[in-house]
């Protein structure tokens, strides 16, 4: 392959230009974050902002959620142009169709075509936000048990025009308001998302006028070439190999009784500078809500790939030229056919794709890849709903979800949430949650000895316990990892599993299934435990000083440090070097 070495003058322009394009995306994100109404957008920041070329090439999605952005936006943008022959300035499109590039129906997205002063379509900006409610049959955006899209119940918008000439199509707005719980909140969030896309449009128009559209386009193509060249050198630094790794999702309604085994075959070809991931040898779509949309089937393996290689390689159309993802129609981790439900596409099975991919890289060579991150979505990050003082409430809370995987150089990032989120979402403030919802959070704490032990260890599990105050509360969640906890790699161990309970008034704990809507009465509580992350490398290779630190901090018990990590202590909890060497079978 040849990458044309462009003129150095252009290289400088390209460096400056990319900083400006990232700046535009950040500006879009700031607008959405600060003006949205629902907690999921304004507190948890569960949204993404993206710029695409008019040819549907991903330019940048700085500071966004990986599972939201790597692939899919190009299909959404293409759907917009295919369904609407003429695009005009002032148009905006609502899109949440998992059959047309969107992640899942909860992710309402606004697409705005950027039309230059001569009427030419130059770019498309996309703002995508997870809704507090999207009008499903049950008050949750995660319908894990829905047998198809009809059982889900959300309205599906395959790039439907919602603004013409900057005016809302109120018919569509009224339809949404009749279907979506808390319609005022939805309206506020819609305005924030639209505002974000309009900000991106305004900035790109200014940039195009300043630089000239052709020049801008040339620079972007050079940016893609540069990114491809970076990807080529990154792949050439990886040993050649082909590996199949698997990861199993817990049994859920509609799955086989032992859950769903997902196999990912990763092939790295340094000579051809190509990475391929084959997901075709996997089960067909299932009569439940955890099937992946095409966007998630393509993004999840790429999350695993980009987690495994030089992180400075830009993620855009250019570097993507060096990746091939092989999917199959009607496959649970492939391309779903309508009316397959993809309600929970961004998390559960998507993680079961990304995790084995990064583990495969870890098996290729020490220093590459990552262990498995913990599965989600535990009840502590579920959707709570109810009626308090005659007023309905519904929102997703983020009360303690951990799960970061051990990596070649760092311990698991505590608040990673799940592999596709990469820790980009925020965790709620207890006081803010108690202020906004009729709940009392008794406890949120980390649990000792739940880390996936390793040279670099996984994150600990989080324990949360909360109750409704003065009403009943429904907690809806889709908690994978009860049975299949996050695996370690290269001798690293698995993290702790997740679990969830309803605590009765008398204190009795009733175990709850992994996928459920649990009604919690006044005086009762929900107890939720999140997954720990898997470890990277053998625990006995972990620095004794780091183990001692974990013991002093109470993250790891002394007995676990001795038996699993082989680190021995004196009575004042100093490392006994000689005993440790003996225990680890090393010369003292």
């Amino acid at each position, binding site marked *: 392959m040849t990458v044309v070495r462009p003129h150095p003058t252009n290289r400088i322009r390209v460096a400056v230009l990319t900083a400006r394009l990232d700046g535009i995306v950040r*500006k879009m994100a700031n607008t959405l974050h600060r003006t949205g109404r629902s907690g999921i957008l304004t507190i948890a920041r569960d949204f993404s902002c993206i710029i695409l070329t008019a040819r549907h090439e991903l330019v940048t999605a700085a500071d966004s959620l990986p599972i939201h952005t790597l692939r899919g936006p190009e299909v959404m943008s293409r759907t917009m142009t295919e369904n609407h022959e003429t695009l005009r300035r002032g148009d905006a499109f609502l899109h949440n169709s998992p059959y047309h590039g969107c992640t899942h129906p909860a992710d309402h997205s606004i697409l705005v075509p950027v039309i230059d002063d001569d009427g030419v379509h130059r770019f498309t900006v996309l703002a995508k936000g997870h809704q507090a409610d999207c009008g499903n049959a049950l008050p949750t955006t995660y319908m894990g048990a829905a047998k198809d899209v009809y059982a889900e119940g959300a309205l599906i918008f395959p790039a439907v025009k919602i603004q013409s000439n900057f005016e809302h199509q109120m018919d569509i707005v009224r339809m949404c308001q009749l279907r979506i719980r808390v319609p005022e909140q939805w309206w506020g969030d819609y305005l924030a998302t639209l505002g974000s896309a309009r900000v991106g449009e305004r900035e790109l128009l200014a940039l195009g006028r300043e630089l000239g559209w052709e020049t801008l386009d040339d620079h972007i193509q050079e940016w893609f070439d*540069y990114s491809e060249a970076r990807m080529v050198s990154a792949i050439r630094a990886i040993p050649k190999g082909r590996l199949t790794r698997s990861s199993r999702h817990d049994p859920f309604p509609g799955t086989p009784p032992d859950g769903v085994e997902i196999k990912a075959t990763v092939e790295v070809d340094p000579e051809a500078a190509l990475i391929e991931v084959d997901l075709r040898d996997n089960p067909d779509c299932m009569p439940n809500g955890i099937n992946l949309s095409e966007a998630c089937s393509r993004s999840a393996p790429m999350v695993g790939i980009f987690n495994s290689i030089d992180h400075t390689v830009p993620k855009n159309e250019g570097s993507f030229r060096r990746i091939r993802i092989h999917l199959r129609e009607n496959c649970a981790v492939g391309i779903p056919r309508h009316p397959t439900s993809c309600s929970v596409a961004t998390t559960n099975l998507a993680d079961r794709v990304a995790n084995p991919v990064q583990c495969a890289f870890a098996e290729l060579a020490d220093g590459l890849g*990552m262990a498995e991150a913990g599965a989600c979505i535990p009840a502590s990050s579920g959707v709570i709903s109810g009626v308090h003082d005659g007023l309905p409430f519904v929102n997703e809370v983020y009360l303690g979800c951990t799960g970061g995987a051990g990596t070649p150089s*760092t311990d698991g*990032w505590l*608040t990673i*949430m799940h592999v596709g989120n*990469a820790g980009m979402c925020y965790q709620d403030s207890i006081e803010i949650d108690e202020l906004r919802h009729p709940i009392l959070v008794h406890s949120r704490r980390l649990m000792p000895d739940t880390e996936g032990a390793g040279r670099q260890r996984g994150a600990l599990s989080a324990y949360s316990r909360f109750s409704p105050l003065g009403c009943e509360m429904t907690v809806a969640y889709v908690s994978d990892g009860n049975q299949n906890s996050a695996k370690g790699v290269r001798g690293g161990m698995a993290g702790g599993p997740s679990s969830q309970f309803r605590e009765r008034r008398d204190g009795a704990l009733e175990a709850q299934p992994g996928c459920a809507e649990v009604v919690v009465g006044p005086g009762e509580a929900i107890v939720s435990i999140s997954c720990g992350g898997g470890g990277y490398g053998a625990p006995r290779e972990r620095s004794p000083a780091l183990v001692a630190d974990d013991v002093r901090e109470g993250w790891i018990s002394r007995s676990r440090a001795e038996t699993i990590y082989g680190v021995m202590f004196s009575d004042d909890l100093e490392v006994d070097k000689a005993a440790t060497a003996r225990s680890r079978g090393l010369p003292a």
Partner: protein
Amino acid sequence: MIATSISEKARQPTREPFSAAARLRFAIDTGGTFTDLIVGSPEGGIGMHKAATTPADPAAGVIDVLQIAADAAGMPLYDYLGRGEILVHGTTHAINAIVTGRTARTAFLTTAGHPDTLMFREGGRQDAFNFTVPYPAPFVAKARTFEIEERILRDGSVRQPLDKAQVVALLRRIAASDTEAVAVCLLWSVVNPEHELAVGSLIEHHLPGVPYTLSHQINPSIREYRRAMSTALDASLKPIMGAYMSGLDTRLREAGFKGRLLVVTSQGGVMDAADVAAAPVHLINSGPSMAPVGARACRPSGDVEVLIVGDAGGTTFDVSVVRNGRIPRTRETWLGRPFASHMTGMPSVDTKSIGAGGGSIAWLDSGGLLHVGPISAGAVPGPAAYGRGGLRPTITDAAVALGYIDPEHFLGGRMRLDRAAAEAAIRTEIADAMGVSVEFAAASMLELANEHMVQAILDITLNQGIDPASTIYVAGGGAAGLNCVAIGRRLGCETIVVPETAAALAASGALISDLTAYYQAMFYTTSAAFNMGGVDAVLKALELRCRAFQAMTGPDAEFVAIDWTTEARYPDQAWEIEVPLRKRRFDDPSDVGALVEDFHKAHQEIFAVSDPHSPIETVGWSATVRCRIGSSVLGRIQSALSEREFANRRVYFGATGWIDARVRRFETLSPGVVVEGPAIVESSFTSIVIDPGARAHRDASGALVITVSE
């Protein structure tokens, strides 16, 4: 306690032995590279001096720079300092102590069930695919965290009473340990402080002499992580900042200073050293908070304009804003990299700092793309041009290679630079690899550094909803002049101002800033059913605290005003914005209407949208009391006797190539004289590049005003 070890004389005015005419005011800003001093004299003239910062013992740098000023005045230091009326000090000592882990061993006491607040933080992460950045350790180790049996609810009601016996047992354990300070942050203490107060008095009894901080007192605001951070930071800084303040006080007094020692706070005001030692969390952003005050002073018409203030030093570029005379605050200040460190939780002047300065190193990645920073050559070895062993090309080297900095007259000739070394570094590391000339590479380095600075500016203007094209760019810092025209053009600003005191902008701000105290309280109400009586009680209580502060500011201080603000939002929004109150009381429903109107306007200004039919909710109330000490007008620099002019020289611009530029001395440039670019305006402290097409003149304040348009 710590605070009282500082001379209480500090508050007293000093009338003798000098007459009023002989009294001097000092403002000293200790930065990463230089310690800047601005001296104000009663005649209105000011002097500007610089000395190297001495990180191991910052007070030494303070004494050094005063010695330089005394030498310039031809007086012994003792006599010179004896003329000092006040000394205002901006310091990075607190943030340095935090970053280098030299704070006190602190115990953290919190509500049972929630021991890991400092560990969870508020989540969030930057750069999704970069797993080389480790998760930050909690600011107080888990091993020093203790759970207290108690629980208060959001309405202030006590769900579980405080178990005093348990607290006492805990405090006995702490007393037996090596703990040096205690931080207490209980859930909902901002609504009902009774449990925190009870724990406070138990600490006084069982840990006598151990400094402690209660969260509802240091930072009465909602969101337990931020409040806990403020509390832990404050407690952990008390021993070291108490020692620093009393040490500085002692050394200044030994050196002859008899006046009042004041310290710059994160909120852009000053406080007596004794007060600040008792609440040192206010010092964390002490350095950068003064640059906008200095910028505002040289732009008196700034009450009808928006100023963007850039402070370009050796290692960082700090941006702040002055909006219609007001300096916006933020509560999101990080101790290090956003999301990879911790927040202070305290309101602070809204500044954004990036690692881009004269010392930032340029490099090429494996794909041949140019990068500048974030690695810095620092003071040692410094840029290649310093000739101290630095081999990697920096922004300073690029400026030397392009002819922007005269190697013979750097820092007024006190340091000679090596142009050949600068060019060699650029050639070896950048130009040859890219196949371009040294000057092209150097110009590219500057252009990229400019873009980073522009993005930092856009970040902060974006947060404040400001269109930079409608602003004036005020360039401060020693490296300010190198790229101010380029930055101004990129932002679309018509006018750029380089203050006479640009090279010590923060110190100049400190010289004229007011003695301030900031008080806040939580109180929720909505415009749909405004609780006027409740709000009135809150405002009254705040005013009492302001008046109490005013009463103890001493006879030198003159009351200026109390600024009132509220933190408000639309229903369901998670983030509040700060709205100034027109009056100190809500007497009439029309006052509520005025607040609602102001809120819609502010929301529109910041976010370009408003919801004019919606009610608003207010959650926080604050009062900032300001008392003037000395003058609020910055004087003019007293020019040295006979400054000689410089010869013209060849400089390089991307647009023109090598071109002859006039070189003018800043100090001798008369008002009304217009300098046409290409030109360089040089002072002893900075070199200002006037690009082709731009024009510059000095205004009445002595500032250089540059018009960028062709």
